[in-house]
């Protein structure tokens, strides 16, 4: 992408750059008026985009088919609108109906879908011996199996971590800590990559590096 030359594009580029500085004035300085200015603009614009996109989506998946003769679409449209009764204290209970359908579908799909990948496939993967012949592959095989067993034991919530459960649950917690450490390391990559993108934009607008 080349550095823009059109007036509106240039104004846009610099507006974005200034707004970025306004937002970063918060961590780099402290909470202040320019930060609040940028923050409110962001929330307002985000919300408006959100409403425009959702409106067009409702038209696409519901209103257009309805006008095209699919009269059954009137049902979800009415039920969906009922969710706004939440804003009227006396009729708030009506909003429970659309929520009930959302909750029912969400839980039905969640419960039916979660068992295979999160439990069954996880256990099968843990107990399937490595195809590699190296010693390290077998050590890893043992590590993961012992790790999974002991950390599931750690999450036994109605048994005290004493007696025979004391050592395995302690071990389980250590496995979890290693997992959280790796998670932290990956989080650093994620957050710094996002900042890196901003640092690049900062320099590109100033023409210090090419766009």
């Amino acid at each position, binding site marked *: *992408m080349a550095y823009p030359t059109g007036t509106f594009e240039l104004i846009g580029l610099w507006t974005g750059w200034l707004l970025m500085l306004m937002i*970063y004035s918060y*961590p*780099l*300085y402290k909470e202040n008026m320019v930060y609040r200015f940028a923050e409110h603009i962001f929330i307002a614009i*985000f919300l408006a*985009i*959100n409403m425009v*996109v*959702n409106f067009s*989506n409702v038209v*696409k*998946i519901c209103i*257009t*088919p309805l006008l095209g003769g699919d009269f059954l679409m009137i049902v979800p449209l009415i039920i969906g609108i009922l969710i706004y009764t939440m804003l009227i204290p006396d009729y708030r209970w009506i909003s429970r109906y659309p929520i009930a359908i*959302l909750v029912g*579908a*969400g839980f039905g*799909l*969640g419960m*039916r*879908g*979660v068992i*295979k*990948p999160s439990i069954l*496939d*996880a256990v*099968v*993967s843990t107990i399937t011996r490595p195809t590699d012949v190296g010693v390290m592959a077998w050590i890893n095989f043992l590590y993961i199996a012992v790790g999974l067993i002991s950390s599931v034991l750690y999450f036994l919530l109605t048994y005290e971590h004493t007696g025979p459960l004391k050592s395995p649950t302690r071990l389980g917690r250590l496995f979890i800590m290693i*997992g959280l450490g*790796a*998670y932290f390391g*990956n*989080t*650093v*990559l*994620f*957050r*710094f*990559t*996002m*900042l*890196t*993108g901003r*640092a*690049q934009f*900062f*320099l590109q607008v100033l023409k*210090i*590096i090419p766009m």
Partner: protein
Amino acid sequence: MSGQNIFDKIQNIDRKVFYWVLFITLCVPFMMPLALPIKVVKNTRDLYEGVTGVNIEPGDIALINFGYGVSAWSECAPGIAVCTKALFREGARIVFMGSHYDVELTYNKLRSDAAADFAGKTYGVDYVFLGYFTGGESAIAQLATDAWTVYPEDHFRTPVSEIQMMNDFHGWEDIAVVLTSDTGDVGSYFLRQWQGSHGTLLAEIGIAMNGSTDYPYYLAGNYFGLSIGSRGGAELEVLIGEPGEATTSMDSINASHILIVLAVIMANVGYLVQRRQA
């Protein structure tokens, strides 16, 4: 305060000092690139091999979900660009869709990042952009069984019945491979409602933060491949032989990662000395 020794002072450096140091550390490498070699790990290679070679036949349909917005372009866009190029070069057709309000911007960016590959393709025949969807897990499950109810029209309001390649896509059976790139939960919806339920080939081009939670699913075979964050994107750029945004950002990643580890070591030395003194 005058009684503070060096270790006390180390413990109490003003946070703004860190922020400035970090921002400068991120900026400098762009001006003085080092371009260190990037090693490709197995999960990234599996992803690349899954979208190239014998796995993809010309005419197969791939589904690419933009589960990220502009905020995560640096993490997700490079990986998606490489996979799009690779799929097009294999002759695959691609359906693009997304779960962020700004999906149109992301789609436009991809068209710009892979401009040469899009140039030889025809909209509606080789690829289609369905646009935004919402509805959480229900929508993804519905997409698997009756895609046209989730998307009666494409992003540009053309009815899907009038789009040539959409006549070949009604549900999960028509899709050879799904690539999803997420900051949120949409990948797990595909995992449960497509891969778990129908055995669809699925890969995640995820943000690094989710790398830890995604990896066990890759290991169990739920994902045939996995790209983790900008590093995964850089590895994919190595594999396709076209360095891009992710490769460029690796220098800043190098500098900032060294900085944070040094900071943690310094703080812990101070802490341990203080504790011994106490």
